């Protein structure tokens, strides 16, 4: 009933191949954008921005990035944390070296630097795959974290090895540093998320995305029909690292404001983002959002319910929270191995037929 195609006539190929071909779906998408851009900024307070929305948006970018590599191109990567660190540190170096250039440009430049590093570490993917590639990217993770710890140039020789984001503005409004208003933080991240998700969605629908998926589904067959594996794999690494680099730069500059590499970008971050992608759904942009929401928002929600509402001791709540999240991950993966995105897809199919399922 809701997802009705009847009466929704398409008169051109452009109409027919749009991202949301069903009218209801399209309006829902516009409504979400409306709320995100025109309603939330007026109501968001600093708790909502700093503890919930900004981390959700940034993790969503990282998850989209990893989804391009792992979900669309089939190359398993455990180096996400390391690549986020590249984004964060290049953003820091650029911010401090060129204080007059806009922070937005720095974040994008950080993405390009990370893309270059990603391509470098993606080279082994031309010869190895599967678990062996995972181990090679794991090496990238450890090497990059070690590098940023070891070479003082990266953290401007500060005594503690911490990097801290100085205040930078966009159109005169602070977006990094302690005086940032909640809505400014939120809007900057939202803007990046919207543009990047839109680009990702269209990349994956186009030629490049199809060549990635061909490589994912069977690399030998793809090569035989004329997909260049070198180009496909390296573009996947480049685009994925670009996204992850931007996520890392925002994570450092806008969200936390100060990081140390081992704590913020360690192996557990790589796993966290990989879990987001797996739980959300491999090969789905919506899945990246769903996975990020699940792993960022659920712990905060549980904490607020268990400690804030029920008044449990904090340690008990923290342990129970781990158990609940862990159990839910298992339940979800048993109920739907293809992730939350597949549940959403099935739900839409059902709604299309409802209330006449036969």
């Amino acid at each position, binding site marked *: 009933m809701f997802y009705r195609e009847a009466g929704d006539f398409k008169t051109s190929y452009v109409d027919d191949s749009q991202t949301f071909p069903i009218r209801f779906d399209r309006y829902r998408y516009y409504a979400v954008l409306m709320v995100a851009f025109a309603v939330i900024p007026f109501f968001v307070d600093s708790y909502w921005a700093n*503890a919930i929305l900004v981390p959700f948006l940034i993790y969503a970018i990282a998850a989209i990035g990893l989804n391009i590599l792992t979900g669309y191109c089939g190359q398993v990567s455990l180096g996400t944390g390391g690549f986020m660190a590249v984004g964060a540190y290049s953003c820091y170096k650029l911010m401090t070296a060129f204080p007059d250039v806009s922070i937005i440009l720095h974040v994008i430049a950080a993405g390009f630097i990370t893309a270059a590093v990603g391509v470098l570490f993606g080279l082994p993917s031309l010869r190895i795959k599967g678990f062996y590639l995972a181990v090679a990217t794991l090496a990238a993770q450890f090497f990059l974290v070690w590098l940023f710890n070891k070479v003082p140039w990266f953290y401007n020789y500060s005594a*503690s090895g*911490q990097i801290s984001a100085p205040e930078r503005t966009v159109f005169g409004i602070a977006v990094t540093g302690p005086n940032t208003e909640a809505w400014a933080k939120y809007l900057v991240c939202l803007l990046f998320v919207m543009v990047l998700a839109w680009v990702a969605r269209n990349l994956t629908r186009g030629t490049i995305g199809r060549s990635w998926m061909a490589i994912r589904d069977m690399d030998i067959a793809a090569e035989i029909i004329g997909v260049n594996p070198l180009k496909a794999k390296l573009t996947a690494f480049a685009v994925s690292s670009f996204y992850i680099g931007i996520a890392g730069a925002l994570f450092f500059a806008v969200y936390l404001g100060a990081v140390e590499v081992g704590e913020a970008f360690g192996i557990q971050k790589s796993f966290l983002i990989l879990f987001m992608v797996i739980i959300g759904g491999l090969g789905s942009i919506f899945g990246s959002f769903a996975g990020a929401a699940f792993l960022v928002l659920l712990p905060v929600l549980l904490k607020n319910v268990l400690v804030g509402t029920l008044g449990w001791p904090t340690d008990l709540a923290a342990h129970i929270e781990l158990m609940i999240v862990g159990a839910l991950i298992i339940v979800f993966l048993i109920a739907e191995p293809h992730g939350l995105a597949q549940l959403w897809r099935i739900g839409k199919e059902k709604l299309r037929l409802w209330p006449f399922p036969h």
Partner: protein
Amino acid sequence: MKLKLASVALGALMAAGPALADLVFPDLSYRTGPFAAGGIPFSDGYQDYFTLMNERDGGIGGVKARVIECETAYNTEKGVECYEATKGEGALIYQPLSTGITYQLIPKVSADKIPLHTMGYGRTSAANGKVFEWVFNYPANYWDAASVAINYLLDENGGSLEGKKIALLYHNSAYGKEPIPTLEALAAKHGYTLTLLPVDSPGQEQKSQWLQIRRERPDVVLMWGWGVMNQVAVQEAANIRFPMENFIGNWWAGAEHDVSPAGAAANGYKSLNMNRIADYPVFEDIRTHVHAKGLAAGDGSNVGKVLYTRGMYAAMLAVEAAKKAQEIHGTPDITAEMMRDGMEALEMTAASMEALGAPGIGPEFGVTCAEHGGSGMGIVQQWNAAEGKWVALTDYIAPDDEVIAPLVEQDSMAYVAENNLSLRCE
């Protein structure tokens, strides 16, 4: 999307709680994760002292203290969440017990105008009150600790460390890296060679570092460890039969739970401390007024332990500063900004510590507008495994201010340049 909406609804519900006229002391604790062994006793001591104030004295200056506990698991992202969740409640002071979270909070508290007290941890150059208006690290900081350790060694070795080999085994994080500049400056001054041995967090894997120690045979190993790293290091030192009396931890690597797993082999291990361990009268009050009434934080088994005492000392300094603020501003209902004035006027003397039921718990010190770092003194204590307790070896040892003051100046000025600040107190 559904999840998001549900959490939106719930969060809105939560945000609408009424504001009570209490003195709010958030406790960003960690009772889970690899650092919980240190986080639990500290938090227990911190909370118990505020409960004692409420139960025995009817609050601070007649106003009840309210502690809001928030679990950070020593994780900076959760630390930020905790800060944002509690700051709106009228928080007077933050003590996150984590150097990583401290670095996050320094710019935030400066913007929100809430004092941050990092007792013996955090950013060392915050001792310079001219630069860091809202950050305090009295009574001592990491660079003091490094200098106290070296001064102790100088004393042991007849005033000269010429040609000695000292290894620093440190947690590879902001926390562990803090003492390096001081130890390097002191190496240049006293002529010892310094070997740096980083241990990656959380610190369970130290075989290669101890292999290197066995090969290079340093005269002394200093340790900047925390959480599970300490226990592993003491065990590894015992395994290679490193002479324990030459193994000195800083004050975060010298609690009962750090040495007890190694049993008798840990006998003789030394560590610094900034607060003396004794059976203070105030513990008796805590037992009668807090524990006997069933109000103990945690399971109540930690009273008198090293980190419990330190947590209680941290709360004691906060309460004294709050009383000072009430006195200065003539109102019992102080705000965070008034609290800061109280902290800047804080004066701890032997008499005042005795009056609080904890004679000699810390060094005597005073805080001023320009000087947020206290005296920087520390003691050296040694573990007696047979009796299962720490024995103080020295009285309070003063750090080498000649070396530390320029380092503090240099690092805090770098912060000024990075953030375009102007100096205060001039």
